C-alpha cells in the first residue's frame, strides 16, 4: 500500500476535526449562522470549508476506530460537507458546533492529547510511590560509592513525601504506647504495634533489675569472643535454661538472631551439600543458604509434599551429600507455621536434617512458652532449633539448640558469627536468663494469656471490618494491603492518627503483597487493640479514596 492511496491515520483525522472545529468557532466569534451568511461572505466560505474538512475526516475514520471509540457519535460528524451547498453547510456546521460538538469535544481531545500530558503530577510523589527497593539492587558503574546515589535520591523522595517507613526513632521506652520521631524530625504518639516485645518485658521490674545487677557485677562489656573469654557464668546458666525450654540441651549463644541463623547454616553446610528452604523463610536463613552452597531449592510455602519431592530428587542423584531443610516456626510476616512432625519425618526418611527458626514463637506461644515446637508436641524431636531473643526475651542475641554436643562444638568453631563476634554483654545475657525463667513460670502463662486477649481483640475488630488478617492468631498480626502505593499512603496517614505500625513491602514481602505487620504486646489492653483497628480501617479507607483505588476488601 503506498502512502498516497493510504487513508490517513485515525489520530491525525481526530486532530483535523478538532482543528477545523476550532477554526470555525473562532471565526464565528459567537455569531449565529444566519448573521454570518447575511453579512460575512468570507467567513461563510471558511465555515463551509471547515464543514467539508470535518465531514471528510469523519468519513475517513477507520472501522477499527469507530468500534473502539464507540462513545463518539461519528454519524453526526459524517453528515457535514455532503450537501454541495455552502449555506446549508454553514447552517449544519453551526448547529453541530452548538449541540453535538460540546458534548464530545472533551472525549475527542482525550484521544488527541490525553489529560496526563497536559496536567503534570508532583514528580517527587510519583517517584516515591512508583519504585521498589529492588529497582536499585544492581546499580551500574565502577565507582562503588557513587553508584549508590540513585537509591539515595529515591530515599530522599520517599522522605520528603513522608512515605519512608524506615529509620524512625523512639523518644521513650517502646511500651504499648510510644512516642516516636520520623526521620524528618516530626514527632507523634500512638498505640504501638511497631515494637517487638511480645511479653512486655522491657518494662518488667525483674528484668530491669537483672540488667542492673549484671552491670554492677560484670560491667557493660563482655570483652571477648565467647570462644575466648567473652562468656560469664550467667552464659552457662542461660544455655541450661534454654536447653530445658526447647527440649534440646546443647545450646550455643550468638550475638544476634541473624548471626545464629546465618552461622548455623554456614557452619554446617558445605558447597556440595544441599539446602531445601521454605521460600518465605527469614532473610538470615536465605542468605546463609546462599553463602554456603549454590545448591539451594526454594519450596512452596509450608508444603511438606514439595519438600518430599525435592528430597526424593536430590537423593536420587546424590546419595552422599548432606541436605538441610530449613523453615521458620512462626513465619514473621505471614503468621503461619508448618507441620513440624511431618517435616521432621520426611527429613528422616531421606537422611536430611531439619532446622527450625523459632524466633517469633518461642516464649510467646505454646505450653510453658515452648513455642510452635511445644504446641505441636515436638519438644526434643526437632534436629536443630534456632532462635532469637529480640522478640520475647527483651534483648539482642540468638541461639542454636540441638541434642548433639558435637554439633554445638562444630558450629561454635565453624559458624563464623559465633567465634568471630564479641559475646553477648553480661547485661544482655542476664536479661535473657531472667526472661526465660519468667517465661517458664506461672507468670509467663498469665502474660501469654493477656497477650492472646489483645491479639484476639485486634484480629476480631480488623476482620469484622472486612480487612484481611493473614495467618493464625499469634503475636504477629499481618494485615494484608497488597498494592504498595496504597500501603505507603496508609502508612503516611496512620502516622498522625495515633497508631504506630510497621508497613512491610518488597523485599520483605513479594511484589504486590505489602502489608502492615502489627506486633502485639501483653501490655496492650483489648480495648486499645480494638481502637487501633478502627483507626487503621479509617486510614486505609482514606488512602484508598486519596488514590481512588478499588482493589482490596472494601469494594465500591
Amino acid at each position, binding site marked *: 500500500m503506498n502512502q498516497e492511496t493510504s487513508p490517513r491515520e*485515525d489520530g491525525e483525522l481526530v486532530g483535523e476535526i478538532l482543528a477545523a472545529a476550532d477554526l470555525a468557532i473562532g471565526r464565528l466569534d459567537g455569531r449565529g449562522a444566519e448573521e454570518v451568511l447575511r453579512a460575512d461572505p468570507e467567513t461563510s466560505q471558511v465555515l463551509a470549508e471547515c464543514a467539508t474538512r470535518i465531514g471528510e475526516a469523519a468519513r475517513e475514520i477507520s472501522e477499527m476506530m469507530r*468500534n473502539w471509540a464507540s462513545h463518539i457519535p461519528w454519524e453526526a460528524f459524517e453528515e457535514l460537507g455532503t450537501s454541495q451547498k455552502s449555506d446549508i453547510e454553514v447552517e449544519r456546521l453551526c448547529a453541530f458546533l452548538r449541540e453535538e460538538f460540546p458534548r464530545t469535544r472533551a472525549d475527542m481531545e482525550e484521544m488527541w492529547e*490525553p489529560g496526563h500530558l497536559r496536567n503534570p503530577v508532583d514528580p517527587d510523589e510519583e517517584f516515591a510511590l512508583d519504585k521498589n527497593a529492588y529497582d536499585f539492587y544492581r*546499580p551500574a558503574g565502577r565507582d562503588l560509592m557513587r553508584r549508590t546515589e540513585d537509591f539515595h535520591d529515591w530515599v530522599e523522595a520517599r522522605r520528603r513525601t513522608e512515605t519512608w517507613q524506615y529509620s524512625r526513632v523512639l523518644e521513650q521506652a517502646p511500651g504499648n504506647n510510644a512516642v516516636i520521631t520520623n526521620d524528618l524530625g516530626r514527632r507523634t504518639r500512638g498505640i504501638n504495634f511497631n515494637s517487638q516485645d511480645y511479653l512486655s518485658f522491657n518494662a518488667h521490674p525483674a528484668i530491669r533489675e537483672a540488667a542492673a545487677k549484671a552491670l554492677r557485677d560484670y560491667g557493660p562489656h563482655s570483652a571477648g569472643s565467647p570462644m575466648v573469654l567473652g562468656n560469664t557464668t550467667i552464659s552457662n546458666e542461660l544455655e541450661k535454661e534454654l536447653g530445658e525450654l526447647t527440649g534440646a540441651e546443647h545450646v550455643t549463644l550468638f550475638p544476634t538472631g541473624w548471626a545464629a541463623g546465618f552461622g548455623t547454616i554456614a557452619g554446617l553446610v558445605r558447597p556440595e551439600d544441599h539446602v531445601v528452604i521454605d521460600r518465605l*523463610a527469614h532473610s538470615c536463613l536465605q542468605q546463609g543458604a546462599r553463602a554456603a552452597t549454590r545448591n539451594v531449592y526454594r519450596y512452596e510455602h509450608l508444603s511438606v509434599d514439595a519438600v518430599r519431592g525435592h528430597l526424593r530428587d536430590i537423593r536420587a542423584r546424590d546419595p552422599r551429600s548432606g541436605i538441610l531443610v530449613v523453615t521458620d516456626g512462626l513465619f514473621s510476616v505471614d503468621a503461619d507455621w508448618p507441620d513440624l512432625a511431618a517435616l521432621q519425618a520426611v527429613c528422616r526418611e531421606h537422611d536430611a536434617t531439619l532446622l527450625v527458626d523459632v524466633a517469633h514463637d518461642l516464649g510467646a506461644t505454646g505450653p510453658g512458652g515452648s513455642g510452635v515446637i511445644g504446641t505441636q508436641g515436638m519438644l526434643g524431636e526437632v534436629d536443630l532449633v534456632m532462635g532469637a531473643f529480640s522478640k520475647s526475651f527483651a534483648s539482642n542475641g540468638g541461639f542454636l539448640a540441638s541434642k548433639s554436643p558435637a554439633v554445638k562444638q562444630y558450629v561454635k568453631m565453624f559458624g563464623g558469627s559465633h567465634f568471630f563476634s564479641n559475646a553477648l554483654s553480661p547485661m544482655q545475657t542476664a536479661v535473657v536468663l531472667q526472661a526465660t525463667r519468667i517465661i517458664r513460670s506461672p507468670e509467663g502463662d498469665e502474660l501469654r494469656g493477656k497477650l492472646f486477649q489483645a491479639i484476639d481483640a485486634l484480629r476480631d475488630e480488623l476482620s469484622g471490618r472486612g480487612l484481611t488478617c493473614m495467618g493464625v492468631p499469634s503475636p504477629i498480626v499481618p494485615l494484608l494491603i497488597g498494592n504498595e502505593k496504597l500501603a505507603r499512603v496508609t502508612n503516611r496517614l496512620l502516622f498522625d492518627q495515633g497508631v504506630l505500625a510497621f508497613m512491610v513491602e518488597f523485599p520483605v514481602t*513479594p511484589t*504486590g503483597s505489602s502489608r502492615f505487620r502489627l506486633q502485639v504486646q501483653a501490655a496492650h489492653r483489648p480495648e486499645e487493640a480494638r481502637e487501633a483497628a478502627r483507626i487503621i480501617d479509617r486510614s486505609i479507607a482514606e488512602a484508598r479514596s486519596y488514590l*481512588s483505588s478499588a482493589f482490596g476488601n472494601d469494594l465500591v
Partner: protein
Amino acid sequence: MDRSSFPSDVLSTHFLWPHGMSYLNRWGLMDKVLAATPSHTVVNLVNEGIALSGEVPLDLLRQHFKELHQDDSGVVQRYASVRRKVLDEILVEAAVEAGAEVRQGFAVEDLLYDGDRVVGVVGRTRGGERVEERARVVIGADGRNSMVARTLRLPKHDQRPKCTFAYWSYFSGFDLTTAQLHRRGRLGMAVVPTSFGQNMTLVWGPSEWSKEFRGDIQGNFHKALDFISPEIGELVRTSGRREERFFGTLDQAAFLRPLAGPGWVLVGDAECFKDQCTATGMTYAFRDAELASTAIHSWLAGERPLDEALNDYRSRRRSQVAAAYYDYTCTLAEMQTLRHDELQLFVALRSNQDETNRLIATHADIAPVSEFFQASNLFLLNDAAKQSSDAFPIFNDFENTTKSYRQNLFA
C-alpha cells in the same frame, strides 16, 4: 446486541495468550480460529539485545485455571494473533448456535430503570426503529468507552494516566515464524504473524513522545523499528508490504470501574482497562465472560442469590493477584529504560529455561507476579547465572547509553 454488523474490525493487538486460546478451546471454538490464523507456542523476548525464548508451561496454565475457575480442562499452550473481523464473527456464530438471539447493527442508547435497578435497554435498529427490551440483568461487554458505564456515570478507580502510544499496521512479505517482542531504550516493538498471511507489526513508546512521533507516522514507525532491531527494521522496510493504513492510539490510561450493581454487570475492558503493552485485553474479555457467565448461571439456576454470585466474580477480579498484575502492566506502560538489575536478570535467565518460561507466564498474567518477583527467587536466579554479561554491548557504557535513551528519538 452490537452496533456493528459482523464481520467487523476494532482496534486491538489481536493477541490471545495461551489462556485466551484455552478459553476458545474450552468453548469448542479454537479449531475454527486456527483454521484462519497461525498459532505458536514459542515467544521470543529481546531486551537490549539480550534474547530469551520460551513458552508458557502447561503446569502453570493448569494451576491458573484451577485457581480461577476450579477447572483446568481444555488448556493449551498456543497463542495466536487473530484479526477481529475473523474472531468476532466466529464468536457471534457460536452464540447463535448456542441459542442466543444476536442483534447486529443495533445501537443501545440508554438503559431502563426501576428505581435504582437497571431493568433493560433502549436502542435503535440500523433502520432507525426505537426498541425497548427488558432484562433481568444487563451485561456491558462494550469496551473501554462502555456505553453502559457512561450511562450509569460509573466512577473510574486506580487511574494510571501514564501509558504508551502505539502505532501499527499489517505487513505481508516476510515470515519471522514466532512472536517477536523487543525492547530498547524507551521503545517497544512486536511482530506477530496474524490472519491473512500478514504480520501485526507494532511499535510503542511513552505517550509523552507521541506528539513528535505522529509528526511523521510512517517515517517514525520505521525509525523506531530500526532503532529497536536493525535486522527486523530492514526486513520490514525491504521485504514488507503494508496492507493497510497505519493505526494508532495514545489514549490508553488504565482504570477500573465498579463491575456490578443492581441489574448490571461489566466485563472486559469496560470493567478494567490496561495498556496494550502486555496485550492481554482479548484474553481478559474471555476470562471475564467465563467468570461472569458462571456467576450469572448459578443465579439463574437457583443455586445462589445474584448478589452472592456477583460478589464471587468481583472478589476474583479485585484480588491480590489481580492488583499485583495491574501494577505490573501499569509500570511497564511507563516505558522507562530497562534497569541494570533487570538486564542482569535477563542475562541470568538465559541459562535457566524453567524460570524464563515462568517469566513469560508471569508477563502474561498466568503465574502470579508475586512468585517470580520475590527477593529470594531473584537472588537465587542471580546466584545461579551461568552466563556473563560480557557478550552484550549494553553493559559497556550503561550509564551514558541509558542517559541517551531518555532523549525523545522523534524530537
